[in-house]
C-alpha cells in the first residue's frame, strides 16, 4: 500500500563527527536505490518516554551496494537529541524518500555548491551524483569555526576543488561563505549554483545569483509535521505564477526550490 515509503531500517552507525554533529548510517536498501539528492527521510523519534513528531533529515549519501543511507544532523532539540542517543543495532521507523530533490543537469557544465554548517547534508550526495555526470564542480564550505567544517575530509576524498570559509577565520577565508562566493562567481562563471544552509546565507546567495543571472537551487528547512503535504505546516513564501505571493509546502513542493522562486 505504501508504495515503498514506509520502512524500518537498522542503524549501522551513529557517530559524532563534530561538536554536536552526527553521521548516522541506516540500512535501507530500497531507499538507497530510489533516493535522489535533495530528498529527505522523515524519522520517527522519541519512542517511549515522550511523544514527538517525526524529524525530517536530508539524505546525506547512499551506498546502493551495501543498501546503506547516511544522514548528517546537528543536535538542536529533543528530536535530534533522541537520534543522537540511538545505538547501532536499533531499528528506526522511516518514511521516505520524500520531497523533490535537486534537478540534475544532463551532463557537463559547471556547478558551484555552497554549504553553510550542517547545510552540507544534502550537498554531499549531490556532489557525488554530479561528479558521476561529468559536471565540473567546486565546493564552497562555510562554518562558524574550523571544527564545524563538517565532512571536509570526505569531500576532499571526492577529489573536487574545495574552498573553505569560517566566520572566525580559524580556517580558510575569514568571513561568510557568501563573500567567498561573491568573489568567485565572476571568474568561475557557473551554469548553476546549489546551496543549503541557514536562511540568511541562502537569502544572500539568492541576491548574488539574481545579480549575475545565474540559476540556483536551494534546499530549505522548515518545521514539519506530516512531511506529506497534508497539514500545510511547513510553508515557505514563494512567488506565484501570477506574480503575487503564495505559500508552498517545503515537504512536497521542496525541500529544493529555485532560488528566485522564494520570497526571502
Amino acid at each position, binding site marked *: 500500500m505504501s508504495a515503498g515509503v514506509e520502512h524500518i531500517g537498522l542503524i549501522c552507525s551513529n557517530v559524532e563527527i563534530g561538536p554536536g554533529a552526527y553521521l548516522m548510517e541506516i540500512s535501507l536498501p530500497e531507499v538507497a536505490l530510489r533516493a535522489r539528492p535533495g530528498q529527505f527521510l522523515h524519522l520517527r523519534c522519541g519512542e517511549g518516554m515522550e*511523544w514527538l513528531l517525526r524529524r525530517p533529515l536530508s539524505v546525506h549519501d547512499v551506498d546502493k551496494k551495501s543498501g546503506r543511507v547516511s544522514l548528517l544532523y546537528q543536535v538542536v532539540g529533543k528530536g535530534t537529541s533522541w537520534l543522537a542517543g540511538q545505538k547501532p543495532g536499533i531499528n528506526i521507523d522511516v518514511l521516505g524518500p520524500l520531497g523533490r530533490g535537486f534537478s540534475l543537469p544532463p551532463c557537463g557544465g559547471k556547478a558551484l555548491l555552497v554549504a553553510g554548517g550542517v547545510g552540507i547534508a544534502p550537498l554531499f550526495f549531490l556532489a557525488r551524483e554530479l561528479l558521476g555526470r561529468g559536471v565540473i564542480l567546486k565546493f564552497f564550505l562555510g562554518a562558524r569555526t574550523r571544527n564545524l567544517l563538517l565532512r571536509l575530509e570526505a569531500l576532499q576524498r571526492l577529489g573536487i576543488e574545495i574552498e573553505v570559509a569560517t566566520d572566525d577565520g580559524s580556517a580558510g577565508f575569514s568571513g561568510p561563505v557568501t563573500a567567498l562566493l561573491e568573489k568567485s562567481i565572476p571568474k568561475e562563471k557557473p551554469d548553476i549554483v546549489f546551496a543549503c544552509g541557514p536562511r540568511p546565507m541562502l537569502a544572500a546567495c539568492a541576491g548574488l545569483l539574481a545579480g549575475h543571472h545565474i540559476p540556483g537551487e536551494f534546499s530549505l528547512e522548515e518545521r514539519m*509535521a506530516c512531511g506529506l503535504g497534508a*497539514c500545510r505546516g511547513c510553508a515557505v513564501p514563494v512567488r506565484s505564477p501570477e506574480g503575487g505571493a503564495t505559500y508552498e509546502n517545503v515537504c512536497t513542493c521542496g525541500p529544493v526550490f529555485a532560488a528566485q522562486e522564494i520570497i526571502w
Partner: protein
Amino acid sequence: MPLPNLSVNIAGLRLQNPVMPASGTFGFGEEYSRFFDLNLLGAIVVKAVTLKPAPGNPPPRLAETASGLLNSIGLQNPGLEVFIREKMPFLRRFKPPVIVNIAGKTLEEYVELAERLSEVEGVAALEVNISCPNVKEGGVAFGVDPKMAAGVITAVRRRTPLPIIAKLTPNVTDITEIARAAEDAGCDAVSLINTLQGMAIDVERRRPLLANVVGGLSGPAIKPVALYAVWRVARAVKIPVIGMGGIRTATDALEFMLAGARAVAVGTATFTRPTAMVEIIEGLREYLHRNNINDINELVGAIKV
C-alpha cells in the same frame, strides 16, 4: 461468536466504524491514500474549505511542545471551486461518507458554502467550523458565543438538506452552553474539541516560536482536557458527539467513547504514524472481541461513575 458490530450512526450517516480523521490533519485524503485504503475509515473528513482560496499564515506555523503540537496554519486551502473541481473527484472514489469542513469569515459565507456543497455529488455532511483559532475573521468568533453559534447553525440549517456537525472550540467558559445552542439551532451532531489556544517562546531570541504568536495546541498533551469536554457535552445534548483531542491509540479512542462520544477523530497522531487510524480500528475490534461485546454502541457513554 459473530463479528462484533463497529458501525455507528452519526447525523443520519451510517459509519462502518467510529474512526475518522480530524479536519486539517488529513489534507484532502490523497496524501494518506498511499499508506492505507481510505475505504477502511468510518468517514473521511477533509481540511477546512473556504469560499475563496486562503493563503494561510506566515511561517513558522508549527512548534512542538511537551507531547503536543502548536499550529497556526490559518486554514490554507485552495478555495471552494478548486475543492469541488479538483479534490472531490478523488474523494468520490471511496465508500466512507465524505464530511466537508466549512469555514466562513461571515455568516453569508457559511451559507454560501453550505448551499454550493449541497449540490455536489459525494458530499455526505458538513462540519461547520466555528472553532478555528488561527484566523482573524470568522472562525472561532462564531464559536465562543452561544447566540453567534446558533445564528450560524440556523442559517446553514435553512439552506442545506445535508447533515450538519458543529465543530466546537474548547476556548470558552462553558462548552456545554455552545453545544446546546448548536443543538437547539438544528445541528445533527457536534464534534469536539478543536485545538486549545497556546503559545511557545524562543528564550534566546525572545520571540514567539510561531509567526502568528499564538496557535492551537493538539496532540497527546490535550487529551485529558478533550475527554473532560466530551464527557460534559455528551451529558448535555441528545445529538451524537464526535470526540477528538490527542487520540493516538485504540485505548484513547475507547476512553472517548466511554465518556460519551459516538465516534472519534484522530489528528496529530497520524503525523507520527500514518496508519494510526487503521491500527485504532483494529484495536477497537480486538477490544470488543476480548470483552464479548457485540456492538460498539454499547460502550458509548458507558463510563461507570
